[in-house]
């Protein structure tokens, strides 16, 4: 009885035109509010650091921005037209393609080979797995700087080649070898990550399947191509996507090792974008290049996702 008194009092106040009572939230509303609160940090983060910058990039791409002169001029699609007439775009795209193909091919092949070799029980196997994985956790710039010293004309690699009577090239100063050097640096930086993913996938291959195939007379090559590869195909797809998308974003290695040279032989799209926007102050054209990069990554990801049904054994 005592507990109902305040309620009656509120109602009385409401009837007499006093303060309106606060309406309690329903369970569903409280549930929804809690949900929104939980996702709010993520939504705010994505909005601030992804959606707004994306919108700004599109906005900037339609303008010419003279930073020092403090002039911001609307130029319509002029920057996009420039992209199609820029004589450097073809070599830049070629360099990007060569780097991506080289990186993806060597990274996946070496990672898979390492995983197969290390997928066995033997003394000290963990040590070798750690050794091959360790570059992944090393600072990228430090890794690249050390490789830069090794690749100098009088550096460690040519020193080793000299020991066996080979006169090495000037790795970072000649077109083809500069690109090969950058690919090598990146392959060995990240091959450990894909190796671990392949290792986990290989250890998930049911032993009874390989045993059954062996009993049916399959040799090692056939086992690998007909049993192992199909069963780890989801991981191959995953590593393929990660590596190719990562290859399109390579920057630090180029900036530290070659600055895009010799000539523009190692100027990949991201480095070209950096040059245009931040070195040359062409923020409008730089924005166009970043839109192009976004579209390329989007197309590749969607295409690979759509093609997974053909590539991946488990997909229907």
């Amino acid at each position, binding site marked *: 009885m005592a507990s109902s008194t305040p309620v009656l009092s509120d109602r009385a106040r409401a009837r007499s035109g006093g303060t309106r009572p606060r309406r309690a939230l329903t369970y569903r509303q409280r549930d929804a509010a809690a949900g929104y609160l939980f996702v709010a940090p993520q939504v705010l983060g994505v909005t601030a650091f992804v*959606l*707004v910058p994306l919108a700004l990039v599109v906005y900037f791409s339609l303008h010419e921005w003279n930073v020092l002169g*403090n002039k911001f001029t609307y130029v319509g699609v002029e920057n996009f037209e420039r992209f199609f007439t820029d004589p450097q775009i073809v070599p830049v795209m070629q360099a990007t393609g060569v780097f991506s193909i080289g990186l993806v091919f060597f990274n996946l092949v070496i990672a898979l080979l390492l995983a197969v070799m290390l997928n066995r029980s033997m003394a000290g196997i963990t040590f070798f797995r750690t050794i091959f994985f360790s570059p992944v956790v090393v600072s990228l710039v430090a890794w690249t700087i050390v490789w830069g010293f090794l690749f100098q004309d*009088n550096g460690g690699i040519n020193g080793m080649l000299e020991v066996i009577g080979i006169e090495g090239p000037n790795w970072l100063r000649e077109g083809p070898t500069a690109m090969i050097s950058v690919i090598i640096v990146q392959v060995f930086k990240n091959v450990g990550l894909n190796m671990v993913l392949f290792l986990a996938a290989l250890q998930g291959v049911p032993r009874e399947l390989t045993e059954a195939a062996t009993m049916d007379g399959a040799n090692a090559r056939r086992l690998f191509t007909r049993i192992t590869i199909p069963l780890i195909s989801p991981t191959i797809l995953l590593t393929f996507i990660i590596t190719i998308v990562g290859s399109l974003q390579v920057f630090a290695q180029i900036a530290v090792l070659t600055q895009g*040279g010799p000539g523009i032989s190692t100027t990949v799209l991201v480095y070209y974008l950096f040059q245009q926007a931040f070195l040359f*102050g062409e923020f409008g054209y730089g924005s166009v290049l970043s839109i192009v990069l976004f579209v390329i990554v989007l197309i590749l990801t969607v295409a690979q996702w759509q093609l997974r049904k053909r590539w991946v054994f488990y997909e229907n």
Partner: protein
Amino acid sequence: MRSAKWLTAAGLLTTATLVLTGCSAASSDEQASDVDLRMTVWTSNEDHLAMFDSIADAYIADHPEIASITFDPLPFADYTTTLTTQVAGGKSPDLAWILENTAPDFVDSGALVPIQETLEATEGYEYDDLSDAATKLWKSDGSLVAYPFSTSPLVMFVNNDLLAEAGQPTAAELRGEGNWDWESVSAASSAVNAATGKAGFVIRDFDYTSWDNLASIWDGWGAQPWSDDGATCEFASDEMTDAFTFIHDAAFEASAMPGPGTTADFFAGESAFTVTQISRASLLAEDGFSWDLLPLPAGPAGEYSIVGQAGIGVMSQGENPEAATGFLAYFSNPENSALLAQWFPPARNSQLNAETLAAANPVLSAEQIDDVVVPGILTGVVRQGHTDSAKISQTVRASLDAMWTADADVPAVLQGVCDAVDPLL
């Protein structure tokens, strides 16, 4: 669903507000009583910064409207990129050091506030004492927009020990015989390389990428990268072709200078000669090798001198241009200029003497200062600059890369440079 829309809208609004607030933070209040000034610099030397702070503290003591003056060191390698990115982000410093090779971009774009009127009107400033040669680069429409605080001649440091080891005459002897020229330097360098395995001559900071440092050679051939009005490429001129033929031969045939990808630090005793600014004398070890300092060797076009410069400008997009100009007038007055001369050769005629410069360069003898440094500053020319410097620099660098192979066709490469750079001039 409606709530979701509201949340999204609120998020966007919050972010937009944050962005707009950030962007509008540059709006200024010139009369503010608590003015915070910031100057970007590329030195992180503690002694330099301590001296700047002491000058700033003295200024603040007499100017209650100034709350603080901060010197913000940015890495030299990315200095201009970082500075322009700060400006683009609405966080322009009030004052900035500016590199000579980017001077035309800053001077011609309106990025700097005219300072001449304030400097002339400042009591005791002695504006007319500023050397015309030093201020030439920093004028827009005849009016000074940046103060040339460091005018440092390029000189040749020589390792006498390496020359002696190779049985070569010292540089002073070469000069005494009237043979202080690039041909003699190249010959001595080849001999040093053959006898000791050490490098011959090194153009410091060139590293086969920063090509404008080669001006310290091609000026001796009377060459220049483009015409005086900046409209025509002159890389393919006969003078430049001869200069690059000399450089190419020195690198790939005579082994007189280390080739691409090979490092040799003069101050670590790894080369016989190096062309650099006098301020690098501080890198010489006290108990190191026997060294000497000479002017740049003569080229076929005769003797010449080059100075490196840096300016301090007041950024027009800074928050307090008026207060910043006032501080610059104090920072560069005769007393502080003499103080700065410890590390930065002054642009004031009255301070270009052995007495001031000896204090600045304790490792140099009075003879070296009188004989090399002062004439170098007085007669030196600044390397040619151009607007759009970053784009031109990158374009030339990319085209010149073809030069750095043993079988390069020098005239063809230089013509290629002009073909590439002409549309940018």
